[in-house]
């Protein structure tokens, strides 16, 4: 059927008005959304993005942190990094630290979360106990562990008391034990958060899955391995990511206890960065270490997510 010309024009105009309204509506929604996130974006740009980019930029300079003159040195700081044996030693320590703390967070965190999700007595108390170190200032945690590991501290006194005095030693003065001892302390400090996240994940699992498994005669171990763990894949990824980032950027606990010593036995990238940048006033080189650290964290995070996605596929 033919549409009268005037009616056709009117229809087109109506459609155009409709499209304009839709556009205006979308624009309004778009604007509203962006206005809402604008403050956060601005804060992020000013306090995160800009300093990060500035750090990347500084890595190409030689600068003492205060002089007006900055000497452009191109990739020299990165070349120095490659030849710097202490950097590689610190990296090895950071990787070892990460392996210990991430494993602890995941394994002990999962077990603790599983226990807390069951109806054990004093559940609330345990939750509080696990989470307390997370909210505690890291410097306080460092003091506590310094006290525990001191030659005349709680650990050695305890070992003495139970007849294991021969095991007592200067834990933080040992070249082989200082790093694992501190990694353990750090794990204690962080795993409460993992427990909370994993516990939240567990509470989100459909209970009918367990009911069905029970009907099929599955035991608790089988249910944990075949229902709980697979259902927590995304949660576990988050826990690993958080623990990973936390582990790579560790600084305060080590600084307040050993300052990277004895010699370099507990030197990690964070402490090495601080020494080079802030103590020796080599801001360019310190920035190069920071860039390397950021790239390592980024690469490990991507690897973690990719591996998880590949496993899903």
């Amino acid at each position, binding site marked *: 059927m033919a549409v009268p010309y005037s009616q056709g024009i009117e229809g087109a105009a109506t459609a155009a008005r409709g499209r304009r309204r839709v556009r205006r509506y979308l624009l309004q929604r778009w604007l509203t959304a962006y206005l809402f996130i604008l403050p956060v974006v601005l804060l992020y740009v000013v306090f995160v993005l800009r300093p990060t980019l500035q750090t990347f930029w500084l890595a190409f300079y030689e600068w003492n942190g*205060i002089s007006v003159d900055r000497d452009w040195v191109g990739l020299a700081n990165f070349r120095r990094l490659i030849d710097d044996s202490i950097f590689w030693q610190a990296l090895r320590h950071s990787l070892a630290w990460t392996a210990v703390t991430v494993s602890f967070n995941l394994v002990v965190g999962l077990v603790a979360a599983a226990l807390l999700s069951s109806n054990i007595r004093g559940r609330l108390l345990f939750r509080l106990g696990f989470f307390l170190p997370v909210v505690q200032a890291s*410097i306080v945690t460092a003091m506590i562990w310094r006290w525990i590991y001191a030659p005349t501290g709680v650990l050695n006194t305890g070992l003495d008391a139970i007849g294991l005095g021969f095991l007592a030693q*200067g834990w933080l*003065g040992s070249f082989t034990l200082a790093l694992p001892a501190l990694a353990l302390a750090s794990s204690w400090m962080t795993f409460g958060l993992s427990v909370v996240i994993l516990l939240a994940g567990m509470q989100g699992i459909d209970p009918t899955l367990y009911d069905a498994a029970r009907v099929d005669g599955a035991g608790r171990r089988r249910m944990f391995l075949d229902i709980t763990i697979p259902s927590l894949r995304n949660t576990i990824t988050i826990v690993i990511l958080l623990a990973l980032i936390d582990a790579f950027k560790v600084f305060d606990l080590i600084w307040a206890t050993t300052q990277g*010593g*004895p010699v370099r036995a507990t030197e990690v990238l964070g402490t090495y960065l601080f*020494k080079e940048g802030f103590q*020796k*006033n080599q801001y360019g080189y310190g920035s190069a270490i920071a860039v390397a650290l950021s790239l390592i964290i980024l690469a490990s995070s991507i690897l973690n997510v990719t591996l998880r996605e590949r496993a899903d596929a």
Partner: protein
Amino acid sequence: MEIRESRVSASAAGLTRRGLLHRATALGIGAPLLSGLAGAKLAAAQEGGEPVELTIWLNGEPGTVNAVTEIIEEYERQNSNVDVTVTFVGNSLFNPSLLPALNAGEGPDVWMGGSGPGQPAAIIEAGHAQDLTPYYCGLGWNEVIPETIVNYTSSDGKLWAVGDSVETTLMFYNKEVFAENDLAVPATWAELMTACDTLQEAGFAMPIGLGGADKWPISHWQSMLWGRYAGPAGVDEVMFGDGRWDAEPFVEATAKLQELNDAGCFGPNALAELQDDVVARFWRGEVPMVYTGPWIIGPAVQDLGEAIAKFGVFQAPPPVDGTPIYPTEDIGTGWYINADYEHPDVAAELLDFMLFRPESRAQLLESGEDVPVGELDLEAVELPTLLEEVFAATSQYRENGTIHAFLDTVTPAAMTDVTYDGLQALLAGQMSPEEFNAAVQAAWEAAKAENEQLQRGGVACSAG
């Protein structure tokens, strides 16, 4: 006055040697005080009574900080137009905070900082520090601050910081424990080693306390022994000449330190010990000796009261029989005025009030943690007996000349880094004395190539 407090890092323990030492020329002299200086003042200003705001960043031990803040309060009472804001910044955070603040134009108007060749030199070079020479000469500070201190706070003939205190190190010991074990104060190195053996046999696992985990306490030993072996001139030859840290006297001194450790004098876990814990155990009578500075006296007087009388001090005996005892001495901290501060005269007047007025100097001295530079009227202040013993033990040998108490603070940061790690490696037996000294020398040469070493300063005030 408003006082702000920032977080004090635990690692500040590594820098807790803010302390005291008596300027030897003054010891026992009961010298004339400095009241005459008041007349020599420049027109340090109240700027016509107009309101003046002044910000100060402090670090240091609680006793000093408290004394300084009280003095500032008194200054404010006398100068109602001046409003001083004091911010306490923990030692380990001080440097990382100061540089960005100065760069951003948000730095303090006055700050109490280090005076070594590292960051202070960079700050001066960048033009952030006010030239204090006119005040030094005009306010009579040149009559108070010893030349040795001025040498460390000046360059190019200009004074950049007011070195307000001097520090020393010596052996603290428990008189009761010594008496119980029939030990006399060791006069020779062999006697020190015997004392060490006797005390170990008596059940003291750590005859000489050493917080090796903190690194810097080992450097106290290194500084003393290097100075003792090479003498003041020998050290100066390296610091300001062509001498080398791997020369024989320094290597021998390092070997002596290792020998002391190998004999078990520092106990089985020196590298796991923190100096604060060691000092606490010393006061508790669990550690018979500790080589440290008199800055530990102030807090102990408050805790121990009369019981502090059972402790004494002595100079470490000569490591080689027949060689002189050189007391250690170094500058504590320096006070700087920001070059951008619009009322430098007011800031200088405050420093003059705080550091050179007799009442303030007495107050600082009585804090038990700070020995002001220059002559002191010991009669006018009430000092703990132990502190008086420190003065006596230092002045007795001053004629021989002095050596550095803290080589780690007057050498470039890169060298300090190598020194700290090397000293731990030395005590752990992972490094030989030769290797250690060679590593230090290499770091020293690298720093010298970058012109990062301390330059000999000095300021001449023209007559009239």
